[in-house]
């Protein structure tokens, strides 16, 4: 029998049914994937510069600063200045990668991000670590659970939330080639290294990582791994779930999602982000206007979370694999 999985490492497929999947599969925080990839990108493109806000050590862009001291600028704890300065730099042809924590890049500096970067559509890359609840132990002030919703609402924005190390590295290369502002959402904590080198990363193209015709699970960033684990659990009950890594939240890959809706007739979205305005909302908007089918959205409800180990926080707030699995069963009961 052919494997329903695509682009997954063998170890990952083998471990999906393991009760301790997240302990079994080695993980890398995608902030470090960025730190690696930006070194490669900088070598290819001399116009790339890196801007930090006193968290270069945390994002490990200190490696870049060491290798390219003339292309590295630490603004101190001043996100607003960094963002507007990045806009100014971009007007001269540089490609600033403005790096920091999602909370402060998307929220404290939101006015700069909207008015100085997106309104003139300047070529600034916003590199946001600590997205979603991934800084579990840091607590609510550092958990950017609404950054994806907010960034999605800005006209002309491009919002990307890759699931693992390989796809995050590919994303860094892709956004450097893309002309315009991009918000790249990264994790503080390690996420399982899911993919092989042939993962076909392309901005705006969702990737089907598991075939299935009974239901579709659409996820982004750190919940792709949870959706895969949920799909493996469903398979044990004879339910074949399609899993889509919708790494680009905007522009949404409507074609892939609508095809999945037609072919599976039921859909669950899963995001480590508030339920308002993110992936679930985007998919719901698409389906309700084109092809309404039974659907359930997994995400942070209208609440703030709390401190705790990252995976435990995901679990308590209803985002982990068992919750996705239960949501799928519920949707299937509504499927005609």
């Amino acid at each position, binding site marked *: 029998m052919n494997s329903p999985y695509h682009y997954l490492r063998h170890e990952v497929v083998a471990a999906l049914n393991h009760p301790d999947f997240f302990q079994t599969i080695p993980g890398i925080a995608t902030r470090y994937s960025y730190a690696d990839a930006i070194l490669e990108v900088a070598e290819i493109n001399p116009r790339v510069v890196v801007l930090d806000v006193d968290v270069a050590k945390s994002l490990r862009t200190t490696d870049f600063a060491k290798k390219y001291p003339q292309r590295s600028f630490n603004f101190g704890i001043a996100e607003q200045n960094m963002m507007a300065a990045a806009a*100014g730099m971009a007007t001269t042809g540089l490609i600033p990668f403005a790096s920091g924590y999602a909370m402060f890049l998307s929220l404290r500096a939101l006015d700069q991000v909207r*008015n100085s970067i997106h309104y*003139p559509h300047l070529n600034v890359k916003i590199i946001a670590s600590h997205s979603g609840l991934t800084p579990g132990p840091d607590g609510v002030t550092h958990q950017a659970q609404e950054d994806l919703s907010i960034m999605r609402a800005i006209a002309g924005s491009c919002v990307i939330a890759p699931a693992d190390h390989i796809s995050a590295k590919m994303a860094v290369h892709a956004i450097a080639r893309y002309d315009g502002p991009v918000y790249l959402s990264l994790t503080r904590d390690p996420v399982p290294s899911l993919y092989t080198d042939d993962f076909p990363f392309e901005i705006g193209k969702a990737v089907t990582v598991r075939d299935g015709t009974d239901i579709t699970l659409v996820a982004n960033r750190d919940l792709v791994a949870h959706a895969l684990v949920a799909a493996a659990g469903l398979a044990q009950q004879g339910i074949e779930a399609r899993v889509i890594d919708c790494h680009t939240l905007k522009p949404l890959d409507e074609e892939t999602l609508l095809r999945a809706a037609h072919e599976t007739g039921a859909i669950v979205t899963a995001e480590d982000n508030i339920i308002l305005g993110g992936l679930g909302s985007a998919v719901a908007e698409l389906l309700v206007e084109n092809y309404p089918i039974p659907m359930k959205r997994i995400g942070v409800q209208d609440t703030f979370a709390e401190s705790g180990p990252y995976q435990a926080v995901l679990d308590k707030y209803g985002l982990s694999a068992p919750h996705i699995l239960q949501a799928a069963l519920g949707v299937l009961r509504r499927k005609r």
Partner: protein
Amino acid sequence: MIESNPSRSILELQRTAAQVRKDILLMIYEAQAGHPGGSFSAADIVTALYFRVMRIDPQNPGWADRDRFILSKGHACPVWYAALANRGYFERSHLYTLRKLNSLLQGHADMKKTPGVDMTVGSLGQGICAGLGMALAAKQQGKDFRVWVVLGDGEMQEGSVWEAAMAAPKWKLDNLTVILDKNRIQNDDFVEATMPVDPVPEKWQAFNWHTIEIDGHDMAQIVAALEAARAFKGKPTLIIANTIKGKGVSFMENVPAWHGKAPDAQQYQLALAELDKELA
């Protein structure tokens, strides 16, 4: 590389500034909205920059090595548009379209719509940061263009201004000059009553800036200060230009109410007569 600026005399600059003020009045009257007070207060400074000091080529607004200008107090953009039109960046007829549908001239300046506008502005406290980024980019790329930013004194209440003030000396951005249009009035009231910003020179010196204080309506002093800022090495320069809000129209001068409203027909005629006298 062409030094395209005509070297205008102080007298010629004064006449140009008078024309710029007339255009500001006309634009805001036609739009029946806008910010006359802060446009008039900055008119002499902006004229000196565009008609004497800056290295620019109006035929080539995207010239990579041009000096950059940013009106950080973006609501005063009629002064920017008037200067650009008179300098030949676009036809004067566009001035009549300010704030109207399909216009090149937005209510706050849009770099993607208006030829010659180097940065989109309007949200206060951001233009100075963008200017810092441009100056930093110039240094990083070994380019010798300069960045000139006009900042409002009310605008100095924005925290991001101080983030930029802290950062520019770190990178020794002597290619960045900020001209403070210190007209002492903001939207609601006098700056002193709303949220005091004084003492300005001491604050910026403490942030490690070179400062120069001038009468912001004395064209000879303006030109001398801008040239001095260009010559000063090792630090960014803040020129504190003491100005009069509404300068040039007697009934608007020093009156907070003229921060953001358009004159009616009678006021327009009165103001026009006063400005015409300057040009006679």
